[in-house]
């Protein structure tokens, strides 16, 4: 039912219904936040990535072929925007001195602390797996990785977190 509702919203958004589009974005906001945080680890950059992605999606939603893939499409765009920001950040930073910032933002300390234990490559697949419930094959496609790489990173990510937090399944 929820899927049908979402597809209807996407259909309306494609006809340039701003309210429908805004509702779609709001429904996906938590997931968007977690995914972009897993890559950027910084709320300010996350805000920029989400803002860019919303605009990108609005501009291109008429080209989305199948309504049911909206969420995947949105996340794909978001991931790419996150990497663009990450790349810009690296471009203007001496890599030898660059260290992954540990966020001092006041929000979601627990989640950020867990994420900070993981390298970016593990964070993204872990987030897509645990937040979005994507299958490994879907994560592979979204992140441009092989399925075996995704599986390995999930396994490795679990091991790392288990070291800090005990059992992690």
């Amino acid at each position, binding site marked *: 039912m929820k899927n049908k509702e979402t597809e209807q919203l996407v259909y309306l958004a494609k*006809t340039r219904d701003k309210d429908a589009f805004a509702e779609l974005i709001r429904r996906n*906001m938590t997931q968007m936040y977690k995914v972009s945080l897993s890559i950027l680890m910084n709320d300010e950059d996350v805000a920029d990535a989400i803002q860019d992605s919303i605009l990108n999606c609005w501009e291109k939603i*008429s080209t*989305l072929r199948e309504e049911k893939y909206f969420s995947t499409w949105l996340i794909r765009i978001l991931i790419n925007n996150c990497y*663009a920001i990450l790349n810009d950040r690296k471009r203007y930073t001496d890599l030898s001195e660059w260290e992954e910032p540990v966020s001092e933002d006041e*929000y979601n300390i627990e989640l950020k602390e867990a994420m900070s234990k993981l390298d970016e490559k593990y964070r993204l697949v872990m*987030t897509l797996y645990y*937040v979005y419930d994507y299958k490994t094959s879907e994560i592979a496609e979204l992140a441009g990785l092989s399925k075996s790489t995704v599986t390995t990173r999930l396994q490795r990510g679990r091991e790392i977190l288990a070291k800090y*937090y005990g059992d992690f399944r």
Partner: protein
Amino acid sequence: MNNPNIFQKEIIIPDIVRTKAEDVLANLPDLPAATRSSDETKRKKKRMLIRVVAFASAAAAAALIFFVARNQFARKKSKANPFAITVNAQEMEDGGSLPLTYPNDFLAEKGISCGPETCEFSLGFDVQGEDVKSVEYSFYNSFAEVQHKGIGPSDNFHGIEIKPYYADYFEVIPDYNPRNVPGQRYYGSYTINYPFTDKKFFEFFLVKEIIDRPDLEQMYYDLEPEVLNETIMPDGSIRQEVMPPSDEEIVEYYNAIFEDVVVTITVHFSDGAVETRYVGFRGDMIEQRWTLDDGTEDSWLYPGIECFFLTGEEVKKIDFEHPVIQYEETKKC
């Protein structure tokens, strides 16, 4: 803290994130709604092409797909060299540049993949361990007229974006439904780069629209999907149920229009060395069938790709065996 479900915990969207998101949602620009050109009829017609794109994406093939939209202002075309491409990869990690030019003697008459409105082929070049930060490309017709230029990363054209992934990894993100805008010759491009362990590899898929070929035009119109039924939706839009052309018809059409496309590559290394590289194609289509989660069966056609480097150091093969392609180390090109 001992929480295995940390990723699933309720979280608070920070004010800065929520405010920015709401701000952009409150100020969405007015844009035209989707037109009939993207309706179901077009969707059906483009089915195979889109699936080829999806295939390329899933394969993480280093691919650049240029879709050449229908030329509404038909020009006479040379049979010798109707289409060529120049790629300049620049901003190397070491500050050098890597201009890549495709010589004119490379005939890409094989390896054609098919779609109702376009044809495509693939080729690639190897920059062997160079760290490429951006790729500049242009392609032109037989009149040496540059028809499109772009610079990646962060380039946009016809809704296509080129984004850097990592320092040596580029991706051109396709529109999920590349638009076929009348009067615009190109309507999409796509690039992915294999993150090879020992070298960088770029592969191109070029899709070409027919230009000034009445015989092919007729074939094209013969491929028009048959409208089985038309429904007016509550919002006034029209949904059509159509019967798309058969894959065989599409393959025949595309093989016919692809025969005289020309693409060549020369690699200029940052140290001044110049090398010409060629990649071959397998001239057939592979049909892959699979069962969806809901139990229904689906299929798509994708081009067989076989690439090799004439410089002799590498002859490898991509052999895709599943539609949701997973890049396998043992099968890299």
